[in-house]
């Protein structure tokens, strides 16, 4: 790859920072695509792309934001190739998402995850970035390559959907109408992909 200009110490710094953000990449990927095994494949793909593109990383800037852009691009590309479609693997998720420390809490994490996966992808990613990843609206807009107002509107809509879903107790159960949900997701993907902006530069 074209990483020959970086000194060994710069490469070591890059690798250390990349290593530190892996847990966050895994969390973002799992929120995006639902299936833990596919999410991890996606993270590994993003890590290799990040490593190959390391000269384009500006030291001192946010490695988490930079790698999220790469992860997001890899996700959109794979989605369009139908490698996965926001599928939700109930058994794996039950095992992984159960949080023993909070068992008395009424909202199970797998319910939360199912609810999240019913959102259109661009609202889901906006909510993940801002509401779970702790990015500012500005950072999220930069990651998604869209305007700050667009991110605010997506988060607001996602919020409204989840609020009403939770108020009505209308949390999707296992084997809801997945087929139609997936169709809707795929239809919206092209819209999301169209707004790549900053994201496309890191390809």
């Amino acid at each position: 790859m074209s990483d020959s200009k970086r000194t060994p110490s710069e490469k070591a710094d890059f690798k250390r920072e990349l290593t530190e953000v892996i847990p966050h990449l895994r969390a973002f990927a799992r929120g995006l695509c639902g299936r833990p095994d596919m999410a991890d494949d996606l993270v590994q793909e993003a890590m290799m792309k990040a490593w190959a593109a390391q000269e384009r990383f500006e030291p001192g800037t946010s490695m988490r934001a930079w790698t999220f852009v790469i992860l997001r691009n890899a996700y959109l590309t794979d989605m369009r190739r139908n490698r996965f479609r926001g599928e939700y693997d109930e058994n794996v998720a039950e095992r992984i998402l159960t949080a023993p420390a909070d068992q008395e809490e009424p909202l199970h994490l797998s319910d939360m995850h199912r609810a999240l996966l019913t959102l259109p992808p661009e609202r889901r990613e906006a909510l993940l970035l801002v509401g779970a990843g702790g990015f500012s609206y500005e950072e999220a807009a930069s990651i998604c390559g869209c305007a700050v107002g667009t991110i605010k509107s997506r988060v607001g809509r996602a919020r409204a959907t989840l609020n009403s879903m939770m108020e009505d107790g209308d949390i999707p159960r296992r084997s809801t109408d997945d087929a139609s949900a997936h169709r809707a997701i795929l239809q919206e993907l092209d819209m999301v992909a169209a707004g790549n902006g900053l994201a496309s530069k890191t390809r």
Partner: protein
Amino acid sequence: MKSDKQKRATDSSENAKVNLQQAGAPSGHGAEHNPEWANGLRRLYDSVVEEPLPDSFKELLSRLDDKS
């Protein structure tokens, strides 16, 4: 290393809490605009952040070194 990671997780979790309180909450409503699911969303994210890293990632990291 581990404490760095945990600190980072805590920071983003705190930011996320503030972010969702702001999202769609114009003024002064405080906790009622931080619904239960918002906490669930953060826990969903943090539960993955706190998972031990699978060996496949450690293997990938060492393969990156081989290439350089």
